[in-house]
């Protein structure tokens, strides 16, 4: 029972953090960069592992942020220097980083506490068993799962960034040139957002793996985008969509005996589908009403 609580708490924090960051990603038209960074972060994690031989929180976060920023920077440079389309340069960079990550995992299978499975699904069901023990290892206090604390830290960072820099993030996302004309450093905020994406993906890694996190970044935020009239609204809606996906997806995973992380991602997609369906029906009804009134007038 207590394990279920830990799993749900971790999954919720993961989904909510992703949704919050995802809102800015899709507004900035950087969804593909989010996809790229979430793939590349794998390499960051593996390298951090191999170099420091520890899974300590700061090391993992640092590794992920460095690789995430390198991905963003390299894609941009390749676009400029190699005169490639920007999505092509993104594609070349992240596939390479991800491939190296996978190769390193299979080369050092013994040393790295990772396998291809967990890259894909994460292992949220095992989250409760990998706990942090406060104090000495024998009589220390078990304060809960490592993954939970990691995502908690990242969640606080994401939330604080949005609260403090809401206006800046809004202006930059809305109209970069306008932001520039107001003296806002658009490049800085771009890389700031990329840092948040890297932090969120690495903290979500244990729970949902490197690829499903894309779904959590993009899908709840898109559902919210369809309905929201203000940015604040959109953030709240994204959180609600994310949280609903976690609860429904968790139940679904039990019912179908399927992976929890995948079920959550699928549920968020289904919720988006339902939202679109609702909007389409609404649109058709409006059109019919419009026609009806036109006919009445005629």
């Amino acid at each position, binding site marked *: 029972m207590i394990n279920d609580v830990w799993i749900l708490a971790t999954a919720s924090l993961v989904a909510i953090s992703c949704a919050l960051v995802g809102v800015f990603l899709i*507004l900035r038209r950087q969804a593909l960069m989010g996809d790229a960074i979430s793939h590349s972060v794998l390499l960051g994690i593996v390298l951090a592992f191999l170099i420091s031989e520890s899974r300590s929180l700061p090391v993992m976060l640092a590794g992920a942020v460095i690789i995430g920023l390198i991905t963003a920077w390299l894609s941009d440079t390749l676009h400029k220097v190699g005169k490639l389309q920007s999505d092509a340069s993104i594609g070349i960079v992240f596939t390479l980083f991800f491939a190296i990550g996978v190769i390193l995992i299979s080369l050092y299978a013994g040393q790295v506490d990772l396998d291809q499975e967990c890259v894909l699904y994460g292992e949220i069901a095992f989250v409760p068993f990998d706990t942090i023990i406060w104090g000495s290892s024998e009589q220390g206090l078990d304060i809960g799962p490592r993954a939970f604390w990691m995502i908690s830290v990242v969640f606080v960072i994401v939330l604080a960034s949005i609260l*403090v*820099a809401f*206006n*800046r993030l*809004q*202006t930059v*996302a*809305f*109209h970069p*040139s*306008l932001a*520039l*004309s*107001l*003296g*806002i450093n658009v490049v800085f905020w771009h890389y700031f957002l990329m840092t948040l994406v890297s932090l969120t993906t690495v903290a979500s890694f244990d729970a949902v793996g490197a690829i499903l996190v894309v779904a959590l970044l993009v899908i709840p935020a898109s559902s919210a*985008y369809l309905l*929201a*009239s*203000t*940015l604040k*609204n*959109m953030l709240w809606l994204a959180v609600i969509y994310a949280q609903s996906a976690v609860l429904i997806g968790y139940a679904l995973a039990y019912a179908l005996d399927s992976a929890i992380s995948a079920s959550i991602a699928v549920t968020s997609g289904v919720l988006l589908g339902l939202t679109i369906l609702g909007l389409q029906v609404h649109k058709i009804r409006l059109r019919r009403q419009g026609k009806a009134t036109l006919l009445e007038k005629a």
Partner: protein
Amino acid sequence: MTQTTRPSPISVNNLNMRYQYKPVLTDVSFEIPEGKTIAIVGPNGAGKSTLLKGIMGLEPLMEGEVKFFGEPLAQKRLATAYVPQREEIDWDFPIKVMDVVLMGRHGQLKLWQRPSKLDHEIAEQALKDLQMWEFKDRQISQLSGGQQQRVFLARALAQQASLYLMDEPFAGVDVATEKAIIELFKNLKAQGKTIVCVHHDLNTVGEYFDWIIFINARLVAAGPVESVLTKENLNKTYGGRLSLLNDLTEQMYRTRLNQAHKHD
């Protein structure tokens, strides 16, 4: 050029810009007077918007410099308000009219500061000046083209700048908005502010503006309407580009000669 005691609101010196290898603007230099309405006029693809963006530092200059009241842009950012072209704005963005106008105040605020009561009052006044107050809670996609334009003018107004740079504010707006913009110009001019607009309608340019800058990949003429709005200048502006100048400048960018030269 005009010699005033105060430095000109904008002085452009030897400005060169390009798109990939194609020269967009070559050797443009001019100064504008303060407290006037100024139109940038030229055919499609003449580099009007590019000039405005270059001046605002939104697109890189290959060469040249721009001074605002005799100082670099960084010192005069907030004294300069920019109104982008309507097509460049993401109208689907989830944001309300009031929030857009308040963006005009963000430049003055620190990172963590929220707009104060005073900021709200300024934004309110700006919206009222453009008869948009009743729409303050609308999402921007629910406005007509003219209303959208007025929102962005209100945003610029809320910045309380002394220099306004606008990219085609009259493009595709209704009569009411056109009148509102002209009214706004009058008020701003009465306060001694300077307005620079990219303008595409030759029929109205003499009526709405005091000064004209004719552009066609280069500066053709700049001066008061009565002296530069001549048949000769119009012919020069709309008479096609200088092919030799164009070809050679393009080749210069392609071979990156300008960089090779810098190191001498």
